[in-house]
């Protein structure tokens, strides 16, 4: 793990030898399709629901249960090499009948490609989707944030808990469309809860999630921590 490392150039596998250029006169619909979408159709015909090109970016709608396999193939296959996960997020539409979409923005640095993979989750079932943490470590916090804001459970994530809101937050998931802009509770209720909250709980061992080191601690320290003593100030 020590340097000096070999320098890896983005676009190293791109044989077209074209210098990438600023897009101009981008059409709303249509235009060149990312070749990966065609490859995905050939490989996972049943799981690919729809492919469209919006403002020069290729959207691939996939079946939620197949999302992990598809993204793993995109990452591993030598003809794709989507090694960079730019973003994971979700979209809920104002029309509440429409499904919630989970969006992965993938980049293939060697081929200089950009692909948007989407999975639609219908609302009458629990919002669950496989986690891609096993492929991309960058998914760790991005999935936690998506869970925090939308309540989507990423199955297989090692440590799925809130990240921006605090652990004891009980008002729901802020970026859902049924969540009012000012929060669910009144200001008075929010203040009351904040004053009633136990600050000790912020420093509990469970919250620090170092449970496996817990057994290595000396007995007296464990007892003190179990009793709710603050471990840091």
């Amino acid at each position, binding site marked *: 793990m020590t340097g000096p490392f070999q320098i890896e150039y983005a*676009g190293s596998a791109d044989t077209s030898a074209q210098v*990438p250029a*600023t897009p101009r006169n981008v059409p709303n619909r249509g235009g060149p399709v990312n070749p990966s979408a065609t490859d995905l159709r050939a490989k996972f015909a049943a799981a690919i629901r729809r492919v469209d090109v919006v403002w020069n970016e290729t959207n691939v709608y996939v079946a939620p249960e197949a999302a992990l396999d598809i993204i793993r193939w995109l990452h591993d296959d030598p003809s794709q090499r989507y090694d*960079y*996960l730019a973003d994971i997020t979700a979209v809920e539409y104002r029309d509440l009948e429409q499904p919630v979409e989970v*969006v992965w923005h993938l980049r293939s*640095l060697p081929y200089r490609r950009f692909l948007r993979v989407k999975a639609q989750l219908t609302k009458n079932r629990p919002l669950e989707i496989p986690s891609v943490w096993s492929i991309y470590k960058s998914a760790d916090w991005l999935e936690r944030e998506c869970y925090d804001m939308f309540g989507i459970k990423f199955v297989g994530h090692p440590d799925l808990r809130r990240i921006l809101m605090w652990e004891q937050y009980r008002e729901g998931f802020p970026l859902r469309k049924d969540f009012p802009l000012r929060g669910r509770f009144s200001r008075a209720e929010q203040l009351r809860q904040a004053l009633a909250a136990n600050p000790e709980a912020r420093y509990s061992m469970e919250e620090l999630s170092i449970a496996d080191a817990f057994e290595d601690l000396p007995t007296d320290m464990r007892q003190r921590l179990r009793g709710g003593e603050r471990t840091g100030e």
Partner: protein
Amino acid sequence: MATQKRTVDVALSTTGLDAEGRPQRVPLVTATDGSAVAVEAPPGIEPDLDGEHMLINIGPQHPATHGVLRLVLELDGETVVRCIPHVGYLHCGFEKIGEYRQYNQIIPWTDREDYLNSIGNNCAFALGAERLFGIDVTPRCTVLRVMAMELSRIISHLVWLGTTCIDIGAFTPFLWAFQERENVYNLLEGWVGARLTTSATRVGGMAADIPDGWLDGLRNFVRTFPKTIDEIDRMLTKNGIWVGRTVGLGVMSPEEAVNYGLSGPMVRASGVAYDVRKDFPYLDYETYDFDVPVGTNGDVYDRYLVRMEELRQSVRILAQAADRLPDGPVNVDDPRVILPPKSKATSEMESMIHHFKLVMEGPRPPLGEAYVAIESPKGEKGYYMVSDGTSKPVRWRIRPPSFVNLSAISKMVEGHLLSDVIAINASIDIVMGEIDR
């Protein structure tokens, strides 16, 4: 973690020169024969003496965490066994608020997330919204935005440099860096009237063209600024203390860096030549002549070197932009997004209707979605916007580079000493406004 041996030509720049005019060599670690000068990375986790680990809490009100970051460290002696970062103390719900605002009304919010790169965020948001509208900005506006982005890159890197120097124990470069930052802010103030919260762009153009004589000020800055970089360079790059506090810390290999989603100087210091300006260009960056500095060791020292070189490259881009700035309008000629001139709005019926519709309803993009990424000083900053045809976005997502970069801190600090946590944390260049949003 294996010890890393890397030889750096160590010299103190402030003391006297040797007989040949070179800075005096001050060995940090002298071999027994007195010849070799090598700086070694700190050893790995020391043997457990009595098994007692200590928990230590840094932040969220600690100045060395660059904002309201809280790190919970599990220490074995002075060595970090585990690091648990906690973020969210500055969460303001920008993305939620954006769903209730028209596109131009969101621009002031973009100032306040990564507040060191505010004018760059303005440009990035405008680029994203223009993609949703299908607008290409005018040639003059393109060049003006390039200037704005590179100026804000200089601001951000200078603040990074100054605060990191403070963290590591050097005070003087902080003053030099902030002096130059003041000059850039004076330029921005002369242009848009604001220093920190610029709100300089509009969908389809800029709020204001540059005033007369502004380019002379920019050229003056381009001429004088490299001297300051050279001074800081002389002060730090071969400084024994600086090298000793930064070499071999927080090493990320290229594969790890890409897998952890690092971007910007973080990923380039690890030897991955990925720069959005080169690989997925915007604003005609492919027509500018500039280099992308790449490190090969992936440690804090290389991140410093990469950022220093980026400052110089930004100056190169600024000089080219100042030379090529074309005449012409700043705003696109598109009544869907740009307000008509006030004189017409009060005298012509059609302009008055446009004015009324734009002010009361706001511009309405067609159905669609766009992810537009720029190379912000912190890394790949993306705005993902989804439109359902109304004047407010269904979803406005910020892809925060600091957030993803910071998520690798647990990996980077493990096995290092407590004091090195500060240096590694500083090297990520976080802005909590962007992480918590």
